[in-house]
């Protein structure tokens, strides 16, 4: 399966990656190889096999509903690029 330029641009948009038109053919080749791997996997007959949702054969441990986390805002915000009034500041998001 080969991807169209349109599909590559869509994927880049979803992943928030900027790509130049000159990179399209290189990406098509590389992604094509990934899809070949998937095709190989898809070709295996999995009739009657339950889909695997996790590679570990364990069940999810559960925790009791207790507040155990202290307020560490100052510690976390010390490494944030910009904070104000206790808020993390990001470029204006236009709705």
């Amino acid at each position: 399966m080969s991807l169209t330029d349109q599909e590559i641009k869509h994927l880049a948009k979803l992943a928030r990656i900027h790509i130049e038109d000159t990179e399209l053919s290189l990406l098509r080749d590389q992604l094509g190889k990934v899809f070949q791997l998937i095709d190989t996997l898809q070709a295996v007959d999995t009739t009657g096999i339950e889909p695997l949702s996790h590679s570990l054969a364990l069940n999810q441990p559960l925790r009791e509903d207790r507040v155990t986390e202290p307020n560490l805002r100052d510690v976390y915000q010390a490494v944030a690029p910009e904070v104000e009034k206790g808020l993390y500041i990001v470029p204006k998001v236009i709705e």
Partner: protein
Amino acid sequence: MQWEVVIGLETHAQLATHSKIFSGASTAFGAEPNTQASAIDIALPGVLPVLNKQAVEYAIRFGLAVGAEINPRSIFARKNYFYPDLPKGYQISQYEEPVVKGGMIHFLVEGKAYQVRLTRAHLEEDAGKSLHEDIPGATGIDLNRAGTPLLEIVSEPDMRSATEAVAYAKALHQIVTWIGICDGNMQEGSFRCDANVSVRPLGSDTFGTRCEIKNLNSFRFLESAIQFEVERQIEVLESGGVIIQETRLYDPDRDETRSMRSKEDAMDYRYFPDPDLLPVVIEESWVNSVKDTMPPLPQVLKERFISDYGLTDYDANLITSDRGLADYFMAMTSNASASPKQCANWVAGELLASLNRQQLAIDKCPISPNKLTQLIVRIEDGTISGKIAKTLFDILWTEGGEVDQLIDSRGLKQVSDSGAIEKIVEELMSQHPDQVAEYRAGKDKVLGFFVGKAMKASGGKLNPAQLNDVLKKKLAG
């Protein structure tokens, strides 16, 4: 052309846990920004989410309340999208195997019974909050809400009008608050709806193209938004246009819906099982133990009240409209000394009216169930009249105190001494000879005139039945 409206709702109910769904941070509302956002909630590298048992238990409770199937094995998935208030770049949700499958919501609209099928209910985490107005030229992010547990309840497209959709949402709201899994506070966003709305020619069996209206946080907005959207779609179709599948926002100030994003930039969420979380296994024994702790549901209680106590449908509905009110009523009836029917009259009448007048919830009611029962006992044993009981109720409400003490100290006792009643009646008859003559000439209605006068003269304290007897005897001459 005649159009049929098709509506399905997706409802987010915030679960009433103390801590978040995957971290030990508090979920309390109204804290200073980011003081309840732990390393997991702000997505620092290397952290691992651990599932809150209570959140799963609440989902089980919901499933049991709506007659759904509890999935013995459910899985969490990542829903991928970018937004500043979603620091991981994905929301942990459930996709292929939700914790609750199916179920049914029953409700009445103007006496007619409706049923809406549920598709599923799944657990997920809430995102943080973006504040666009607080910081000039920038957006501020508060991640206190990030990781708050939500139960997303998805209905089938079974509703055919805005009225039905609101009735469904109210029934759902009643259930989640009744079983104690959600505080139901819509202003704080604890219960909010997305509505999928489409129209089709009446009689058609295929669905029209739908639009999704996001984040409706009041029943009134839900109704207005659907009504606007239905009219908009019909107008587009009747003028020869087509409906584009899109997400829309409701603007309550202008009472209209506006396009938010269309299908071309529709989200492609690329769900996949979250490798940080293992499958959640719910043993039957767990489901059974949750079942044992479930309160009786409103519908069940309502029927019990009608059959055991002879309550009217109306009173039974009112009393079961709220868990606290039903508990209050049951606390009264557990004391067998007062008749349940009278208790219901007082709860659905005076008590509810007083609560509404002061906009109080039942748990803030100044009169305890026990005290109100005592008051009713005193009506039933003839100590006080029904009219005086209302006065006594007001005293208990505003000043507090004990029923019997107040009856004594305020002189509220009913006069059942026939000698005293006769004296009042005789006096009144001599003051109003014309009315006596009218009565004797066959105008029975004049009796009411004397009842009113006698009650007024005694401050409402005469035993009404006795007064009637004495009046009839004396007036007959």
